[in-house]
C-alpha cells in the first residue's frame, strides 16, 4: 500500500478501468466444473480466475485434528505459479496459510458441521490467475462449490473488498489500484442474516471512511449473493434449484432435524436427513 503521483480516479469519478466508485468488476460463476471432486465451481471476477473443489465429509488426516462432535472445515487457498506477474514458488506460503485460516473460519460458520462428527470437509481454492481480491473471490466461489457438493449449509457466503484510492473509498480494487491503494478491507457478509463472517483490513481509514466502505460492501455482497444463486440455478433444474435455494433461505429457521435439501451426496449419510438427493452430477438436476 503506498500513495503515489498516479491519478486513479478522474474528475468525473471514473476509475482506470471505467468503473464508478461503488461498482463491482464483472463476475461470472459456474457450478459443477470438475469430475472427481464432490463439488466444484469456477469464478471469473474481473481478471481473477479461480477454481474451488470440495471433498467430504471424509476421514480426517492427520487424525489428531479430528473433532469427535462435529466436522472440521479445512479450506486451502493456493496460487498457481503462473497466476501472478513474477512466478510464485509452488506451495503454501505464510500469506496463503493466513488466508486459508480466515476462509476456513467463515465456511465453518455456515456448514452444519455437527451433522458429520469425526470428519473433514476439505475445500481447495486454486487461484489460476490473480488480479487483486482473490481471497474474496475464492471464498465466494468456495461456498458455491460447497452447495454443489450437497453439503448442508446455513447459507451461501458472498465476499467482497473495499479500498481507498486517491483518498476516496471505492469498491473492489483491481490490481493497479491495489498496488497504489491506501487501504484494503475485505469482508464476507451474509445479506439475509446480516452476519459478517470474515473481516480484515490494512491501510489507513478513518472511522467515517470505514463506515462508508461498509455500506458499499453490504450492497455489493447482496449483488454477489444473487450471482451465486444464479450459478446454482443454471446448474440445476429450475425446480430443484428453487427448492434448494428456498431451503437455504429458510435454513436458519430449520432445526437440525430438518436439513436443507442441499445435503446428500456425502460419503457418510446423516442419520436425520429426510431427503437425500445427489444434486452434483448427471440425472434430472443437470442442465
Amino acid at each position, binding site marked *: 500500500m503506498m500513495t503515489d503521483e498516479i491519478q486513479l480516479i478522474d474528475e468525473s469519478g471514473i476509475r482506470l478501468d471505467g468503473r464508478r466508485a461503488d461498482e463491482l468488476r464483472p463476475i461470472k460463476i459456474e457450478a459443477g466444473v470438475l469430475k472427481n471432486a464432490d463439488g466444484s465451481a469456477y469464478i471469473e471476477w474481473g481478471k481473477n480466475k479461480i477454481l474451488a473443489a470440495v471433498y467430504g465429509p471424509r476421514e480426517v488426516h492427520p487424525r489428531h485434528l479430528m473433532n469427535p462432535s462435529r466436522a472440521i472445515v479445512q479450506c486451502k487457498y493456493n496460487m498457481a505459479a503462473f497466476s501472478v506477474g513474477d512466478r510464485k514458488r509452488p506451495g503454501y506460503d505464510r500469506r496463503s496459510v493466513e488466508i486459508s485460516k480466515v476462509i476456513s473460519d467463515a465456511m465453518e460458520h455456515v456448514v452444519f458441521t455437527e451433522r458429520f462428527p469425526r470428519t473433514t470437509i476439505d475445500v481447495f481454492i486454486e487461484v489460476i490467475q490473480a488480479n487483486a481480491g482473490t481471497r474474496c473471490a475464492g471464498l465466494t466461489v468456495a461456498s458455491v462449490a460447497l452447495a454443489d457438493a450437497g453439503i448442508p449449509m446455513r447459507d451461501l457466503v458472498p465476499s467482497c473488498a473495499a479500498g481507498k484510492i486517491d483518498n476516496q473509498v471505492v469498491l473492489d480494487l483491481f490490481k493497479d489500484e491495489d498496488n497504489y491503494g491506501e487501504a484494503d478491507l475485505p469482508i464476507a457478509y451474509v445479506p439475509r442474516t446480516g452476519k459478517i463472517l470474515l473481516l480484515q483490513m*490494512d491501510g489507513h481509514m478513518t472511522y467515517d471512511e470505514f463506515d462508508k466502505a461498509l455500506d458499499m460492501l453490504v450492497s455489493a455482497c447482496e449483488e454477489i449473493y444473487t450471482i451465486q444463486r444464479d450459478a446454482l440455478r443454471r446448474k440445476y433444474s429450475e425446480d430443484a434449484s428453487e427448492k434448494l435455494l428456498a431451503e437455504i433461505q429458510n435454513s436458519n429457521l430449520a432445526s437440525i432435524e430438518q436439513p436443507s435439501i442441499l445435503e446428500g451426496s456425502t460419503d457418510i449419510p446423516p442419520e436425520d436427513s429426510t431427503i437425500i438427493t445427489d444434486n452434483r452430477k448427471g440425472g434430472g438436476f443437470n442442465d
Partner: protein
Amino acid sequence: MTKDIVSEIKRDYLHNLAENGRREDGRNFNDTRPISIELGLIESAEGSARVKLGQTDLIAGVKINLGEPFPDTPDKGVLTTNAELLPMASPEFELGPPRENAIELARVVDRGIRESQALNIDKLCISPEEKVWIVFIDIHVLDYDGNLFDAATLGAISALTNTVIPASRFEEGEDYQLEVQHIPIACTIAKLGKTLLVDPKLDEEKICEARLTVTTDENGDIRAMQKGNDGYFEVDELKSAIKMAQEVAKNIRGQFTFLQPTAQ
C-alpha cells in the same frame, strides 16, 4: 486452541457471568488486564521490550542488518516480523516450524506496524537498489494466557521506540535512534453471546464466538483489523467494537509515556 479444552461447564459459567455484566476476574467489559512493559532488557538486540498483559508474557526484540532491498521497492528498507509460540509458553504449543496461529500472529502484528507507517521505510534506504536497513522484529511468547495480538503489537512498537540503528557496526557512520512516526495500538474485542469484551484472557478467548483485533494510530484512525473464529459480528456490533478499541487504545497510550512518535 481448540475449544474442547474448556469444558462445557466453564463455557456456560462464563456466558452466564457475561449476561450478568461480569467477568471471571472481576474486570469490566472494557477493562484490559494490568500491563507492564520493560524496555531495553536485551542488550544483544537493537531494541527490545518485555510485555506482560496479565499473565501473558512475551519479549519483542529488534535486530537490524544491512542488506539489499526487494527488487520492486529499490529505495525502501525492509521490515520483517516473526513470532514464535515457544513450547515453554503453553502445553498447547508444539516444537517445529511456525503453525497457522504463529503465522497469523506475526502477520497481524506486521500489518499494524507496517500500515500505520510506524517506520519511515524510505529513510531506511542507504543506497537505492544496493543497501538498505533490514529491520527484524521477533516476538518470543514465554507464557500464554490469551490475547497475543494486543501484547505482541505492544511489544513490537515498544521495542521499536528504543531501537538504535547499529550503523557503526556496519561502518555506516554513527549509531542513531530509529525514528518512529506513528504508534499503532492493537485492541482485541471478544464476543461472548451478545456481549463484547476487551482483552480476553485465555478462558474467554477459547470460548468466544468471534474476536476482532483493531489496530489504531494516535489519531484513532484504523490501520489494521482482523476478525477471528467461526462466529460472526453484526454491523452494529462491529461498529461498537471499533469504538471500544479506539477508547482502549487511547487509554493504553496514556499509561506509557514512551508510546509517542519520535518523528513526524
